[in-house]
């Protein structure tokens, strides 16, 4: 199967700091790839480079065969990105925000409205759809941001710590939506420190440390951990200890 995302030998420096050091990985349709690692490992930088917000110093990123660059809007349109710090237009309602996102994704107003209504319903935000974004709690804003990223049904979805701050019911809903999105032949790249959730949700786990890809686990390896009676957290702690 052709990879939907190809990250090839990507390096990124911020001054003297090497945020990413030649990392390579792929995501195929249907895959949920989890990026884990300590704070400052390079997870968010990797996502920012994939969606074209940052440019790599070296290496390449391809989405559905199309090279990611500042000017390549085709590649940009393939990506939905929910950044770690949620920011929405504060004086627009959820409905208006989703209408904007739908238009930017190229949907017709009618299709946008229909899609927005479905997402708001699924995320239990319908009741609050006419409230201003600034009146939303952090969790509600995060759910709305996820709806924004999903409105155009992007082939590649990037979620940066998107499960943080959600109540258990919302977290379960978002996880189900992530699985559904992947099941429709899309790929999801997810970063989180909630290792138990990552273990359950992801089909592939990549462990980053100091900008380097230390190890990766596919579904079989993850199942293998379970049969050994170990959790992803055990694996994370022991692997990082040896990496240091």
């Amino acid at each position: 199967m052709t990879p939907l995302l190809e990250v090839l030998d990507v390096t990124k420096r911020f001054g003297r700091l090497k945020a990413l050091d030649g990392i390579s990985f792929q995501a195929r349709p249907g895959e949920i790839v989890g990026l884990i690692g300590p704070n400052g490992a390079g997870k968010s930088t990797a996502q920012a480079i994939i969606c074209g917000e940052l440019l790599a110093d070296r290496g390449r990123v391809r989405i559905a065969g199309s090279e990611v660059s500042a000017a390549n809007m085709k590649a940009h349109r393939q990506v939905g990105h929910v950044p770690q710090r949620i920011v929405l237009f504060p004086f627009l309602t959820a409905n208006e925000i989703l209408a904007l996102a739908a238009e930017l994704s190229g949907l017709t107003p009618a299709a946008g409205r229909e899609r927005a209504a479905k997402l708001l319903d699924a995320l239990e935000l319908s009741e609050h759809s006419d409230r201003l974004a600034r009146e939303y709690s952090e969790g509600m804003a995060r759910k709305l941001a996820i709806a924004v990223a999903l409105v155009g049904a992007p082939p590649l979805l990037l979620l940066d710590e998107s499960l943080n701050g959600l109540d258990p019911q919302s977290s379960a809903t978002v996880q189900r939506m992530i699985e559904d999105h992947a099941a429709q032949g899309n790929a999801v790249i997810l970063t989180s420190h909630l290792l138990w959730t990552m273990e359950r949700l992801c089909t592939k786990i990549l462990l980053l440390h100091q900008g380097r890809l230390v190890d990766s686990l596919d579904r079989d390896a993850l199942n293998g951990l379970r049969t050994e009676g170990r959790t992803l957290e055990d694996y994370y702690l022991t692997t990082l200890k040896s990496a240091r």
Partner: protein
Amino acid sequence: MRGDGERRGMWRVIVRLRALERKNRLRVAGRGLLPWLLVPGLGGLGAALFMLGQTTLPPADLPPEALAEALAERGYLLRAAMCFLIGAGSFEVLYRARGATNLAALPFDSRSLFIDRLGALYLAHLPLLAALALLQAPLIEVAPRALAVEFAIDSLVWLLTPAAGLWLHTLAGVSLLRGTSLIKEFFGAGMRVDSAALMLYSPAAVFAVGLSAAILLAQAFRPLLSSSGQAGPALVGTLLVFTAIAGFVLHSAALFKRSWRAIRARFREAEMLPPWREGPLPVRVYAQSPARLFSPPLRGLYLAMLLNLRRRHRLDLMFTVLASGALFWFNLATTLPLDALLAWNAMLLLLAVAVVLTPIYRLTGRELSPPGCDALFRPPAAALTTARVLIALTHQLPITISVAAGYGIKTAQPVGVLLLLMIGVGAGLLASLLYLWIRGRRSGAWLPWANRGAWLLVALTLVLIGS
């Protein structure tokens, strides 16, 4: 450490903090082209203000009485503009400026916060005094004695108005703590603002205090214009100004000490739940209709930005309407010669660039476009810039049209009308594009070269033809 958890005399720490912040900001800015543009840019602006001042001078061969009258009118208009800007600006410095908000959560004593805000008020408005001095400087050719008198009045008004702003805005803040009242309901009628009603009016009150002082000082200083004039009234006026400043500052300091933290908390609440949330959310706003003419994604971005801005800053539009009306009336009522009127109008339109810069500053600011918003929505840069510029122009266009229409009715000169329209639109475009360019350089996001060139060419052409 005091019992109330506050540490006194921390203003030195705040001063050091501000100095450090400035140093670091300069270090970051120092990497780009901006510092190289700053000196010539400021020089150019100074020269432009001086030339504007020159253009608006009355003819030197007027009879002494008429010359004094014309100079008094000129000085009054300039000081009125300054008082207006200080009225609105002092509110922002006190309540909304990042300097005020980022210290609020830290355990500084109220006195230190007061000293910090007092310094910030005068620092923020220092460029206004410099601009006024440059506009008045050409007086030296016509009436050197008048220059000294005018500058003395300007300085006293400049010293007094921020202090009055500090006092009146703090009083309005204290009124927030006292809930609603019959008077507030009356003032807030139609706007459903109740407890925050006085805050809506405090910038206008500052303007009124500043302007009243300007009128009285002009009267007090008038005898000095003649060589045998009495200095007594001017001295009394000066003394009264300093007494008033001391009174404003001391009473504000007492109010700060008693209530500042509570005011901030209540103000935050008032900002959090905007008054109109008590009624239905406005879904149709001024300048929404042109969106129908645009195609996606410009249409969506224009609408979203417009709603975002108008719901947050409703009073901006009121200012546009008032300024348009006042300038229209000025054109009809003035007794200035036609040539001078054209020059005055051109200057007013160039000053109205501030009306364009206000919305564009707000649209790109942290509050309405928080950093990271682009990461989520991923709007195309060209459409985003176009939407912002168009929205900014919708603020300024009524003013340009009013000035041109007023001038047209008064003089029946279509060429002049056309020139004023070109100057207004061109200056608005140029100012907003330059602002976005400078901002874009900082954030690394700006239009592609071709769009950039086309926009700037149009703006420059309009300004040049207009000039």
